[in-house]
């Protein structure tokens, strides 16, 4: 199977679907002539022209709203948020229009729209340019929210997203664009709402999504040296959510640690922990732990930034507590 970067797999999905379906158009800041800030759309304007690869002015509310109007009238737009941090300027369009139009029109209107771009931090962009918005967008009924972690998934999930009749919030991990993996050629889809068991294990469920999945795989390798077999679950999709795979894993391991880069309060990990206690309370041998970002705006200095996001050691410590290998007094510190 061919090996591709996450970036190229993502671009291939969009380019191949644009060849198949002329209702697919791209909009965003510097996605055309410039080639895309993260080079995801590089070259597409040469292949498809400026009517289909639309360079917009820096006006997120305006062009996101326009894309919603396009989606309501026969097109399948893909909006690039240069980074998700700028989506707050378009939040009125995304939340008040895209998410609700089908409902308040009594089912008369569909919004087959994809909004995509890099989400999360890790490259010293500091407070205004570092957010993990899966919990924020995951809150709103009417939106679908996904966070693919591998090159294979990013292509298959982008194809699902474009063909989906509802608005999809497509959260890419900027830190993953250069990572490589096997990617099938041609048309395949990865459905939403189906989590992936990234590594099988029997002792503890390690649950995450996006770039945390790679972190969890590294942690699982380290734990294995210590005789602990961690099962790594990649959620893939935040809404719809695959509680079945989570619960099945916890039934097997009886223990879980949920890891996320975003803030802990009112977050995805909180929801995962709640679902586990609702659906597998009797199977649990220890409380579910959450390892999250520090409750501060993202700092600039490298050491502070590293301290603000989940680390291998923090996860290993949490695992040790959940396995009752150490005292559990620090369970609520992060």
């Amino acid at each position, binding site marked *: 199977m061919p090996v591709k970067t996450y970036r190229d797999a993502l671009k291939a999905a969009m380019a191949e679907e644009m060849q198949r379906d002329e*209702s697919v158009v791209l909009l965003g800041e510097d996605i055309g002539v410039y080639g895309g800030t993260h080079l995801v759309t590089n070259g597409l304007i040469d292949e498809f022209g400026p009517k289909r690869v639309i360079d917009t002015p820096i006006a997120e509310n*305006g062009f996101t709203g326009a894309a*919603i*109007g396009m989606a309501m009238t026969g097109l399948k737009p893909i909006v690039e948020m240069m980074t998700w941090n700028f989506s707050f300027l378009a939040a009125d369009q995304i939340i008040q229009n895209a998410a609700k139009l089908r409902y308040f*029109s*009594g*089912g008369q*209107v569909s919004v087959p729209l994809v909004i995509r771009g890099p989400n999360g931090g890790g490259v010293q962009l500091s407070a205004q340019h570092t957010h993990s918005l899966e919990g924020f967008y995951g809150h709103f009924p009417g939106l679908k929210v996904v966070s693919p972690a591998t090159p294979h998934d990013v292509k298959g999930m982008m194809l699902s997203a474009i063909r989906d009749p509802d608005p999809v919030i497509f959260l890419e991990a900027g830190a993953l664009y250069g990572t490589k993996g096997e990617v099938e050629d041609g048309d395949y889809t990865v459905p*939403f709402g189906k989590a992936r068991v990234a590594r099988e294990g029997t002792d503890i469920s390690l649950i995450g999504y996006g770039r945390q999945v790679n972190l969890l795989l590294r942690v699982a390798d380290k734990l294995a040296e210590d005789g602990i077999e961690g099962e790594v679950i990649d959620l893939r999709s935040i809404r719809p959510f695959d509680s079945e795979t989570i619960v099945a894993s916890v039934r097997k391991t009886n223990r879980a640690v949920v890891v996320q880069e975003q803030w802990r309060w009112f977050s995805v990990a909180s929801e995962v922990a709640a679902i586990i206690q609702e659906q597998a309370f009797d199977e649990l041998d220890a409380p579910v732990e959450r390892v999250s970002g520090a409750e501060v705006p993202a700092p600039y200095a490298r050491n502070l930034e590293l301290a603000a996001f989940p680390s291998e050691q923090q996860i290993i410590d949490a695992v040790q507590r959940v396995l009752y290998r150490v005292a559990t007094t620090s369970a609520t510190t992060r």
Partner: protein
Amino acid sequence: MATTERQGRKSRSTSARKAADRAKANGKEAGQPPRVKNDALLDLYRKMVEVRLFEDAAQRGFRTGKIGGYLHVYSGQEAVATGFLHEYREGDRIITAYRDHAHALLLGSEPKAVMAELYGKGTGLVKGKGGSMHLFDVANGFMGGYGIVGGHIPLGVGMAYSLAYRKTGGIVQLFLGDGAIHNGAFHEAANLAGLWGRDGLNPTLFVIENNQYGMGTSVERSTAMTDLGSKFDSYGIEHEKVDGMDLEAVLDCAHRAAERVRESGKPFAVEALTYRLVPHGAADFLEKYRTKEEIREWRQRDPIGLLERTLLERDAADEDALKAIRETAKARSDEAVQFADESPDPDLTELTTDVYAGEMHVPAAGSGIGE
């Protein structure tokens, strides 16, 4: 401050006459023959009366507790939507904000279904899920009423791009209030419309329903540049003004504007000077922001009254004929009320439908262009 307020009121008391003069200077030329024949004009009179009586009935429904939430009626502004929507052609798309009952009715929505929606019934236009602010009738080109001021404007501009991209020949009529002009969404969308229109990819007809107040804040108290059409200059969009109380003036302006947009694929804007003869919302009874004299003066220019005078002067109808139209319209609105009142509530199973097309639905590849 108090002095300024008083001066503000005094100047507003003549705003009805001034608005008409401003529009005349910019709009249709005097002595031009009417473009619409008498019998067609009489039919448009019927539509305006139907809208007015529908809105009267809706206000009664609100006062008697049959209608919940917010209720914003169109009374006084009928000539604007009636004149512009006379230019509606199949394939066009119409979008507006929350003062949307008239647009739905004029595009052909069943008054019974519209009233049932206001009553929150399962037989409502959007199944009781949207209410007064979210009427939709996609089969008749109506892409909705929206509740967030300014938020619908980018949608309309995107629809126009889609219609041009797909070479449908349709245009978008994008209605917005004077209050929405000051919102960032308007400026971002107008900029895109001008930009895309340069390549013939934006047949948007902006219709500003300038009823003089954004809720209770007058145009004068909202902006130092009160000539709202001039806002479009920044975005390379041409514009004109029209007396929005004079149906014939609106018809003439709307026709020229719509043809121009249809032929060029470029946006165009019209500021229609009009007046809300009723409170902003049905619960806005104090109206501290305007004077009784001002409302009285504008009543002299009630678009329905003006049209009645024109029809009588031209012998297009006599008093009896107009009375018969009013009575038929009243009966129609009574029927709508009765239907709404007797309709069942939405089935509770409707609570969770229409959130998604289907939780895991993913159609086949390349399903192609089309709505």
